[in-house]
């Protein structure tokens, strides 16, 4: 059976005043019905752009999807017309964004924004949509939901806004929910609540989830499979247990080492990855992680490695076998 979503060779660039930014460089992955996929990486490594490309929400210009395909139930999203795409967005694939403070339109009421997709996609009347909206707000845990429909976003707290965003995304029962760093802008306690909420709703509604984050800790609790991105490339991919238990890419190792852990003794310092991710103005000939990599060898500068399987479902793109420190 073909997967729910299959992305092949997706490549997205931005043609800016400062030069060409190679944000996403030929990434491929699949997503099964009901599966939760985590995408991890530092900010600016192409995570968001890769999913925005799927939704065709890249601002053009300056952005452009220059190659690849994204088969959703056999239809290539990258080649649909804008009108066909509007039928997909919100109806089949819905999104929750990073910053709940700016993701809701400040000059319309929450109720108005919440009912919009249902009236559009499901043909509900204003009244039906309002009733449903109240139920949805209730479902995501907003008390006195019916009264709050007439509030404006600024009258909601950050956590409540994100709950409202989730309610909006789920309003048409999509088969894929894309959550683009939905907890990054929130307090730690609220973060955990939102993760639990999405998990519960996923189990109840049976949708697939793509969860993007820079925080490996968050993803451990929710994802089944994890993709690690660096500089617009997928550098490692595998089941969540493999990624945590048997990481094979130096970048994944570094990310894991920078996580705070409860079992660490207090005088151990958190590891920091030296340097900054490149600003992606053009690509080097070799592996882009080389300048920051403690395993780097001369070969790494010559050619960028392809993803190679190391276990079933676990692939890594690195010339070096990090378990031995030698070339593969």
């Amino acid at each position: 059976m073909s997967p729910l979503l299959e992305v092949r060779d997706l490549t997205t660039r931005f043609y800016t005043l400062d030069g060409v930014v190679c944000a996403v460089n030929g990434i491929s992955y699949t997503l099964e019905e009901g599966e939760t996929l985590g995408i991890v990486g530092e900010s600016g490594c192409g995570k968001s752009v890769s999913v925005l490309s799927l939704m065709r929400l890249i601002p053009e210009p300056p952005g452009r999807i220059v190659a690849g395909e994204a088969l959703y139930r056999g239809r290539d999203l990258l080649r649909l017309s804008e009108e066909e795409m509007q039928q997909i967005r919100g109806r089949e694939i819905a999104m929750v964004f990073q910053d709940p403070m700016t993701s809701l339109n400040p000059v319309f009421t929450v109720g108005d924004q919440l009912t919009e997709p249902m009236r559009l996609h499901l043909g509900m009347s204003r009244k039906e949509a309002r009733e449903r909206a109240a139920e949805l707000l209730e479902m995501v845990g907003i008390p006195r939901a019916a009264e709050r429909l007439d509030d404006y976003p600024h009258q909601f707290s950050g956590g409540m806004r994100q709950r409202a965003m989730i309610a909006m995304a789920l309003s048409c029962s999509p088969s894929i929910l894309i959550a683009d760093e939905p907890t990054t802008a929130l307090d730690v306690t609220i973060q955990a609540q939102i993760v639990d909420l999405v998990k519960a709703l996923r189990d109840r509604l049976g949708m697939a989830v793509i969860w993007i984050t820079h925080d490996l800790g968050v993803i451990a609790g929710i994802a089944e499979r994890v993709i690690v991105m660096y500089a617009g490339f997928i550098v490692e991919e595998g089941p969540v247990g493999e990624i945590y238990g048997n990481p094979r890419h130096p970048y994944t190792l570094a990310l894991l080492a920078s996580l705070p852990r409860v079992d660490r003794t207090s005088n151990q310092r958190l590891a920091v990855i030296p340097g900054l991710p490149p600003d992606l103005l053009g690509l080097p000939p070799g592996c882009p992680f080389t300048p920051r990599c403690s395993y780097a060898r001369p070969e790494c500068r010559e050619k960028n490695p392809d993803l190679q399987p190391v276990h079933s479902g676990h692939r890594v793109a690195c010339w070096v076998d990090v378990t031995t420190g030698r070339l593969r």
Partner: protein
Amino acid sequence: MATTEVTWEVFEEQAERPPLTPAQVAWRRFRRHKMALAGAGILIAIFLYIFIGSLVFSEADANYNDLSVRLSPPSWEHPFGTDTTGRDILARTIYGGQISIIVGVLAVVVSLIVGTLIGAIAGYYGGVVDSILMRFTEAVFNIPQLFLLIILAKMFGGKIPTFQFLGRSFSGSVIVIIGVIGLTSWMYLARIVRANFLALREQEFVTAARCAGARNTTIIFEHILPNSIAPIVVAATLDVASAILSEAYVSFLGLGVQPPTATWGNMLDQAYHHLETEPWMWFFPGMLILLTVLGINFLGDGLRDALDPRALAETG
């Protein structure tokens, strides 16, 4: 499609070095801003016109009356035609341009001094001083500028005699107009400077300077002002354009720089009476004003984009 391969040197620079300094980013953006470059190009052309032109024609040429050729249309001898007293319009636009631009720039210097002083004092001291100064600023801001210009130009008109400078004689009205325009256009600058001071004075580096025993004036001029320079530069650039326009308005109404000193504005003084039959008399000076102001506006727009702090975070 543009090639995106880069060398390792460039790439490693990107990866290892901290990002470019704001000044470097600004310069990079400015260079790639087509309109800013076009604006700079127009302005260079205008400067060449008025400076090289003044080597070809003397100021005496510009003020030479020849009634036998008065009001003649453009010809080989007088490419832009002649005016009511037979003066060559081409030569007059050259010398008029010098005065117009000097007036524009110096008027902005005056408004910069007044605006920065008032804004800095209000923003730095706050409290009663701030309220009084800002009330005054708001009051002047609410009077349409041209009304103030007319009143002040009439008030000071004819009070300063003709003077000699660098071997040339200038009508005292040049000084009057510079002062008058400067004194009617400082309010916006004062507000920017004040807002920046209010925001900056609470910041740590100012507290640090104060703890180190720096005096108020030192703090204002050495610590705070340099940090609010970008919006001031942009506003001042654009203000030169409005100052040149203001000079033209006042002169058009007959209250500006007095003849024989030519400016682009006062060459248009009598334009209305020559609307139908001698269009060359008003077309060329107006066109030069338009080009100069356009060039400055382009440049200011480019500077604004280049210095916009939000632009620094744009890529990534």
